[in-house]
C-alpha cells in the first residue's frame, strides 16, 4: 500500500481508489470476514474520520458513506453485524473521544471486527428518562472501583464481552456532577445477567445486577465525576444514527398493511380505506423527511430533524399496527406465539400482526421516550425556556426518589 496522504486532503474519489486497492488485495471469497475487517481497520477504512492507526484516516466524517457505498457496490458488505450496534454506534465514538491511547488500542479493533460484543449499562429502574438520577454506586478502593446496583433494558448483555457503564461516584454533589463513566468487563465476578421478558412474550432485553463488581481504574473513561458529559457523547451518537441508504416508498410496516389491503378485498371497508390512506400519506411524509435529512447530512449540514425521525417512526408503527388489527378483525384477535424466548433481533415481517402491535409500543419508550424527545425539540430546536428545575442544585442523596 502506498503512503497515505494527510486525511484532510482526501476526497471521495481518492477514497474510492483506496477501497478499490484494498479489495484488490483482500479477496473476501477466500478471506475470513473477521480477518478481512481487521485488515480494513488497519487500512483506515473502518471509520475514515478516526485517526490513523485507530481504524481511520483522519478524513472528513461525511466521507464515510462513500467508503461504505463503495464496499457495498463491490459486493463486500460485512454480514451478521446486528449484535454490534452498541459497540459500533455508541461505544466506539465515546472511546475515541474520551479513551486513553491504551484504551483505544485495546478496544477499538476487536469491537470493529465483531470479536467483542458490547452492551450499555445506563438505565435503571429509578432512572429512565431522568438518567442523571442513576443510583448504581461505584466506590474507589486504591486502583479499582467496586460497583453495585441494578441496570435495566440492556440489550445484548447476555452476549456481550464489555459494557459501557455509568455509575455514581459522589452522592454528595448535584446529580449531574457525581457520575463517572466506566468500561465494565461483563465476565467479571458479580455481574448477573437476567432475561427481562416483554409484553410480546419474549425477552430481547436484560436486567443486569452488579454485586460488588471490581473495575480497575484503568477502565474509567474520562475524569472522575465527568461521566455525564461522556454519556452525552454516547447518547448523541445513538440519536444521530440514520442509515446512509435511501428508503423505498412504502417501506416498513406500511408495506405489510398495504399488501394486506391489496391481497384481501374481503377486509376492505370505506372507513378502513380512509385510515389506510391517511397513514400511507403520513408514512410517505416521514420517509421523505428522513430522505431530506440524509441529503443534508451528505452535504455536511445535519438538521435538527434527526431528533424527530425516531418519534415519527414510533408513532407510525403504533398507528399502522393498530390499524392492521382492526382490518383483520377476527384474525386480529389471535397471536402467533407467547413462548418465552431470546430472539436475535426484531423482525417485524416474520411475526404476526399482534406482535407488530405489541412490539411497537416499545418504540416510543426505548432509546429516549417520546416525551423526552419533545422536550429536546422544544428547548434545543425551538429555544423555548426550560421549566423551573428543583433538582439541579441539590445533592443527589437529598433528591426525592
Amino acid at each position: 500500500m502506498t503512503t497515505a496522504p494527510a486525511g484532510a486532503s482526501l476526497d471521495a474519489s481518492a477514497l474510492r481508489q483506496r477501497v478499490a486497492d484494498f479489495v484488490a488485495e483482500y479477496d473476501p471469497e477466500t478471506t475470513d470476514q473477521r480477518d478481512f475487517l481487521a485488515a480494513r481497520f488497519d487500512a483506515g477504512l473502518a471509520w475514515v474520520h478516526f485517526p490513523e492507526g485507530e481504524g481511520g484516516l483522519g478524513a472528513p466524517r461525511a466521507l464515510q458513506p462513500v467508503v461504505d457505498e463503495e464496499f457495498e457496490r463491490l459486493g463486500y458488505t460485512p454480514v451478521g453485524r446486528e449484535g454490534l450496534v452498541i459497540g459500533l454506534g455508541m461505544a466506539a465514538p465515546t472511546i475515541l473521544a474520551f479513551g486513553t491511547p491504551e484504551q483505544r488500542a485495546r478496544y477499538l479493533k476487536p469491537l470493529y471486527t465483531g470479536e467483542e460484543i458490547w452492551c450499555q449499562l445506563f438505565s435503571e429502574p429509578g432512572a429512565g428518562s431522568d438518567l442523571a438520577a442513576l443510583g448504581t454506586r461505584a466506590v474507589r478502593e486504591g486502583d479499582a472501583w467496586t460497583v453495585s446496583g441494578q441496570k435495566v433494558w440492556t440489550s445484548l448483555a447476555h452476549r456481550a464481552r464489555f459494557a459501557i457503564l455509568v455509575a455514581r461516584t459522589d452522592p454528595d454533589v448535584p446529580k449531574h456532577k457525581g457520575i463517572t463513566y466506566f468500561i465494565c468487563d461483563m465476565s467479571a465476578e458479580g455481574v448477573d445477567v437476567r432475561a427481562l421478558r416483554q409484553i410480546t412474550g419474549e425477552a430481547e432485553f436484560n436486567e443486569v445486577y452488579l454485586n460488588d463488581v471490581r473495575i480497575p481504574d484503568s477502565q474509567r473513561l474520562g475524569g472522575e465525576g465527568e461521566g455525564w458529559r461522556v454519556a452525552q457523547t454516547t447518547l448523541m451518537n445513538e440519536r444521530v444514527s440514520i442509515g446512509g441508504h435511501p428508503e423505498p416508498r412504502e417501506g416498513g410496516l406500511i408495506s405489510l398493511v398495504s399488501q394486506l389491503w391489496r391481497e384481501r378485498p374481503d377486509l376492505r371497508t370505506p372507513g378502513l380505506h380512509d385510515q389506510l390512506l391517511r397513514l400511507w400519506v403520513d408514512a410517505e411524509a416521514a420517509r421523505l423527511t428522513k430522505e431530506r435529512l440524509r441529503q443534508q447530512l451528505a452535504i455536511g449540514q445535519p438538521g435538527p430533524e434527526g431528533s424527530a425521525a425516531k418519534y415519527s417512526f414510533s408513532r407510525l408503527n403504533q398507528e399502522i399496527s393498530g390499524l392492521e388489527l382492526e382490518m383483520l378483525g377476527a384474525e386480529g384477535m389471535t397471536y402467533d406465539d407467547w413462548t418465552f424466548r431470546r430472539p436475535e433481533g426484531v423482525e417485524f415481517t416474520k411475526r404476526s400482526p399482534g406482535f407488530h402491535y405489541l412490539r411497537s409500543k416499545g418504540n416510543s419508550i426505548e432509546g429516549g421516550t417520546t416525551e423526552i424527545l419533545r422536550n429536546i425539540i422544544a428547548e434545543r430546536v425551538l429555544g423555548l425556556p426550560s421549566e423551573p428545575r428543583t433538582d439541579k442544585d441539590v445533592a443527589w442523596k437529598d433528591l426525592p426518589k
Partner: protein
Amino acid sequence: MSEKRLDLLYSEVEEELRASVRSLLEDKSPPESVLARVEDDRITDTALWKELAEIGVAGLPVSEELGGAGASLRESAVVAEELGRGVAPVPFMGSAVLATTALLESGDAATQELEALAGGESTGTLVVGFARAPGSGFPEAVQENGGKLRGNVGGVVDALTADVLVVPAVGDSGPGLYVVPASEATVTPVVSLDLTRPLADVSLEGAAGRRVASGADAERALRHALVTGAALLSAEQLGVAQWALDATVDYAKTRTQFGRPIGSFQAVKHRLADLWISVSQARAVVRSAASAAATLREPGAGAEAAEAEINASLAQAFVSSVAVKAAEEALQLHGGIGFTWEHPLHLFLKRAKSDALALGTADRHRLALSGRVDLPAPSA
C-alpha cells in the same frame, strides 16, 4: 330525532352489587394472580366463577324461578365493568351474556339449561366467532340435517370450558338455535391476543342438537344476544379504561423523575385530564347502552329494538377507542415498566385491543349507525 330519556345513573342496588364483585375480585383474583395464571393451558378460573355465581353473577337477567336474580341488564353492565376492571378470567361474556340471552329469547324450550347456567353449575357459550357484529345476518357456517349439526366456527369465546353450546345453524326449515352438549363437539384452543380470555375453534361433525328456536324467533334471539353482548362488552371496556386511568394516575403521583412526581408535569397532566374526560363520556354512553338493552326484554319491546341497537353501536363505536387509548396511554406513561411482562398492564392492553375487535369493530358499528340515523353512505 326522538329517543327515550334513559336513566344514566347507578342505583344503590347496582352500587352494592359492584362492591361485592369488586371485593371478591380484589380478594381472590387481583391482577397479579391473573398474570400468574395466564400461562396455564386453562386460564379460565372456574373456582372464581363458582364464587361469583354464588353472589348471583351467573344469572342476573334470569328470572328468580329459574334460580336467577331477576335483575335487568343494567346490573349485568355493572358486573361487566368490574370484571373488565379486574381482567377477570371467567366465562361471563360467553355464558352469562351470550348463551343466556340467546336461551332467554328462546322461550321455555331451554329452562333446564338456563337454570344450570344461572346457578353456575355449568357454563355455556354461543357458537359464533367472537368478532361477529350484531348486524351480520344469520351465520351459515353450521348446517343442520335431521337434527345433526355439521360445521366449523372459529374464535368462539369461552368455548374451552363450556358445558353447553348454543349453536345457530341453518337447516331445511331455515335458521334455528340448537343446544348441544360440549362433549359432542371438538373444541380446539387458539392462541389469543387477549391472554385472559381464551378463544377456541368449535367443530361439529354430526353432533346431535336440540332445537330451541326456529325461523324469525331464532334470528331475533341471535340478534338480541349479539346486541346485548355489544352493550355489555362496552361496559367491560369501560372497566378496562377505568383501571388503566386509575393505575396511571396513581403511578404519576408516586413515580419521581427530575426531582418531582411525573404527574406534576403539565403535559402528563393534560393527557390524563383528556383521558378522564373520555372515560367520563364512556360511562354515560355505557349506561345509556345498558339501559336501552334492558328494554329489549320488556314486554312488547319491538319498538325499542332500534333504540337498543343504536345505543349498542354507539357504545361500541365510542368506548372501544377509549379503552384502547387508555391502555396505550397507561403503557406509555408507565414507561419501561409498563412494557415488561411482569407488570399486569399488558393484560389490560391486550384485553382492550381484543375487545375493540370483538362483536364488531368501531368501524362496522359506525356503518351500522349510519343506516339507523339516516346518514347514508355515498352511493358508489
